[in-house]
């Protein structure tokens, strides 16, 4: 179990806290076994643009309905955040937001002289002006590489502003260079939220369950209704008040353990909200376990059993029919860690043959410390091993290489940009952005139907393949994918 310590302004980075790694080549079973015996990370001597903690912290704060977000850095460090404003707007009907409001995203716009004299005055003035302009109920300040290296005392500036303005002003330490695992940005955001927003519970509410998630469709409302509870979606689409009293929920569930590992543990360890001891409900076996675990935590085991039986009656025949159509097809997965494992579950359940995976990083043990939350271990025991399992740190060159040699019937991806290479190689490729879409028994039907459609509708990728532009050298495509990974032939 990782140690949550809210007295420090900064979250401990993932590679230290839970020994996360960004490089591995082997198979899934070996990785699962190694996870409990001191897994060592491996570096690469070639790397491509990655992604950093600051935008991950941003996506967990920008969508909080009544908050404003300041990026404390040069203007570039906030330049992709408009995408979250778009997401908020586009997905608000899924969450019943009747009047979506403009997202308030600022940059302190650090200049060269600030790197010499410091940016703290600029930050203090910005916080004040942002409050005047937005009257937000909370302000989040995200740090950046430049702010981090020049050594601005962001915590003090935020504390002073908080006192002056009378609203939470939350420093979030998410400089890109701090962690090799960009998902540390989620942890950083949650750490700040837990320190400054979440209040000790006034009561325990058995009608509310926290769902740590992104911005997917509202599938939990129906499920929880059977247990007499409602989902409290955190943190996107929540409000400052909604977050304050997340501490009063009956339980916490996760849509993606990579995302919510830290917040789940914080809510449990610091505020007494139990996290249910089961990985998210992808695939039949895991969905069974998940509902049972939920029922147990809520003291409503019977309801869980009834729900499982009822859902299975309804959906198993449909799943079986899909299995017949999909069985024997080969598939490759590329995704962030836990949701990648979820996709592997789905493939296993639907009878496809998984021929490999490029998973961005690996968390050997989540912050809860519970093996029951280890989705990859469950996947291996429920559906068998996954060969060609590569922890790829989102390195496109490795993915292209692997796909080119493996040539699966279908590529499943869960991050922008990654489907392109499947399509360029003429491989039908599917990205489902809504991670709730494939959850539960009904999710298998949803996803299976999409899979069939994608495999069937391959004219586009076959045509694209003929005209695809490829910047990779033939030499590279002939090397093993882990050539530049420590221990590989090219290092």
């Amino acid at each position: 179990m990782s140690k949550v310590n809210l007295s420090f302004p900064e979250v401990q980075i993932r590679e230290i806290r839970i020994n996360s790694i960004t490089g591995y080549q082997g198979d899934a079973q070996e990785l699962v076994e190694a996870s409990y015996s001191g897994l060592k990370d491996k570096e690469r001597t070639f790397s491509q643009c990655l992604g950093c903690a600051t935008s991950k912290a941003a996506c967990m704060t920008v969508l909080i309905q009544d908050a404003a977000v300041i990026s404390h850095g040069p203007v570039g460090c906030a330049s992709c955040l408009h995408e979250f404003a778009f997401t908020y707007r586009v997905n608000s009907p899924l969450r019943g937001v009747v009047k979506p409001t403009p997202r308030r995203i600022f940059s302190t716009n650090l200049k060269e002289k600030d790197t010499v004299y410091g940016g703290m005055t600029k930050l203090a003035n910005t916080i004040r002006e942002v409050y005047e302009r937005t009257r937000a109920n909370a302000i989040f300040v995200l740090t950046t590489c430049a702010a981090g290296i020049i050594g601005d005392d962001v915590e003090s500036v935020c504390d002073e502003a908080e006192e002056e303005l009378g609203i939470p002003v939350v420093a979030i330490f998410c400089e890109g260079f701090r962690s090799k695992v960009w998902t540390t940005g989620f942890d950083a955001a949650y750490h700040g939220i837990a320190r400054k927003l979440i209040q000790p519970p006034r009561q325990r509410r058995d009608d509310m369950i926290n769902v740590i998630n992104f911005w997917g469709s509202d599938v939990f409302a129906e499920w929880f209704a059977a247990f007499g509870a409602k989902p409290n979606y955190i943190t996107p689409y929540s409000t400052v008040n909604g977050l304050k009293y997340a501490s009063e929920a009956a339980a916490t569930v996760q849509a993606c353990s990579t995302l919510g590992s830290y917040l789940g543990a914080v809510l449990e360890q610091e505020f007494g909200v139990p996290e249910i001891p089961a990985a998210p409900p992808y695939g039949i076996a895991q969905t069974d376990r998940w509902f049972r675990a939920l029922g147990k935590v809520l003291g409503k085991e019977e309801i869980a059993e009834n729900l499982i039986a009822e859902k299975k009656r309804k959906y198993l025949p449909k799943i079986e029919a899909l299995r017949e159509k999909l069985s024997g097809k080969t598939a490759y997965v590329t995704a962030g860690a836990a949701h990648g494992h979820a996709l592997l579950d789905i493939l296993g359940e639907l009878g496809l043959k998984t021929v490999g995976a490029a998973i961005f990083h690996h968390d050997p043990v989540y912050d809860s410390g519970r093996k029951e939350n280890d989705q990859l271990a469950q996947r291996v025991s429920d559906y068998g091993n996954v060969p060609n399992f590569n922890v790829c740190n989102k390195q496109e060159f490795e993915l292209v290489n692997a796909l080119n040699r493996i040539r699966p019937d279908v590529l499943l991806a869960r991050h922008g940009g990654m489907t392109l290479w499947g399509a360029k190689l003429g491989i039908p490729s599917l990205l489902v952005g809504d991670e709730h879409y494939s959850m539960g028994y009904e999710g298998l039907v949803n996803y299976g139907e999409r899979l069939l459609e994608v495999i069937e509708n391959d004219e586009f990728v076959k045509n694209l393949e003929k005209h695809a532009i490829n910047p990779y050298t033939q030499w590279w495509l002939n090397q093993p994918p882990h050539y530049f990974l420590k221990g590989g032939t090219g290092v």
Partner: protein
Amino acid sequence: MSLSGMIEQERFTCAIGALQSVVAIPRAVPILHSGPGCGEMIAGFFERSTGYAGGTTSPCTNFTEKEVVFGGINRLRDIIRNTYKVLDTDLQVVLTGCTAGIVGDDVDSLVSEFAEEGKPIVSVETAGFKANNYEAHSLVVNAIIDQYVDLFVAENAPRSSKNTVNLLASIPYQDPFWKGNLFEYKRLLAGLGLKANILFGPYSGGVKEWQTIPTANFNILVSPWYGKPIADHLKTKYGQEYTWFRHVPIGANETEAFLYQVLDFALTQGAEIDEKAARAFIQHESKAYYEEIDNLATFLLEFRYGLPNHVHILHDAGYVVGLSRFLLHEVGIVPKEQFITDATPEKFQEDIRAELKATSQKREIPVYFEPDAGRAQEILRGIHHNGRGLIIGSGWDKELAKEKNYDFLSAAVPSPYRLVMTTNYVGFTGGLRVIEDIYHLVLSTYA
């Protein structure tokens, strides 16, 4: 500007955003010596902007704590060396981010080691706190000129080609219409008898074309302010004079003014041009344009269900002036308060105000220079004019337009609500396209 200098709703990005100018050169690759998020921030800002080897294809050192403490030069050496193995490219441009800038890695020396081996490689300092991408575009282009183009100057004698010009205009990706615009400039200049090096996009000639930059007789700068350092540099370096057109020429009036200005300048520079044919070309293009306007005028005059009568534009200075002039004179939509969001340096602001003032003898067009576009929106929120209004801006402005019940045309980055591929807004045809876009969205509000 706000007191703090903060910016809400960014419409440009930092210096390293000029990596897109490298992406726009066919078969060139940007190599980032930067933190791990820089590439993602830029790709996310521009969207659909990966080109040949941008986005997640671009090599990057992805600074960690280790490089911040001990420096990242050895890591960069590995990355560059292996870039040659993995990617097939014609030009490599190493761009530094804030981390490399602050820790002080000597990138120039490292890159010159590779250059001495004969690699077509260039380095340029683009730490985000040093400049924005409007400014850094010039840094990148000048670095390529000095460190790459100049190596070929023996075979490309300065000003040796009388009818060749270098065109310095749209900034790739920052101008969402850059691809179409550059192609249209090239086509129009060819009509005058000039061969234009447009340097970026599929209708440029890639690095081969860059090598011929010195041969151009003169240069053409189309810009309110950005890109001027390139024209100045080329003037000093290769003795090329330049003619400067200060806004985006949209529609007939401005395109004619632009082409006649270039024609006159070309003649003074000794270009071998058939002046009569060139004038005939302009007149022919203009005639074709007015055939459309003539045909459309009835609609503009008579459409009885409501068309916008006034416009607010939030854009860079070149578009604000170019669109204001075009919409007032050639479409009949009156430009009201305008917002220039490109962080125009103060020394250029007076001239831009004068250009906007010269748009009309009859009316003042109030203009705000406001890189903090959130503030621009606050001002706009408090303005009211009679009649149906139109806002031309970036995706950020869609919500404001909705709030004010205005029509909205997305024509600036970031542009999540509109796809642009090869559309041009420049030239006669560009003006017609602007008209199509405006009235397409107006008409689509019915039924």
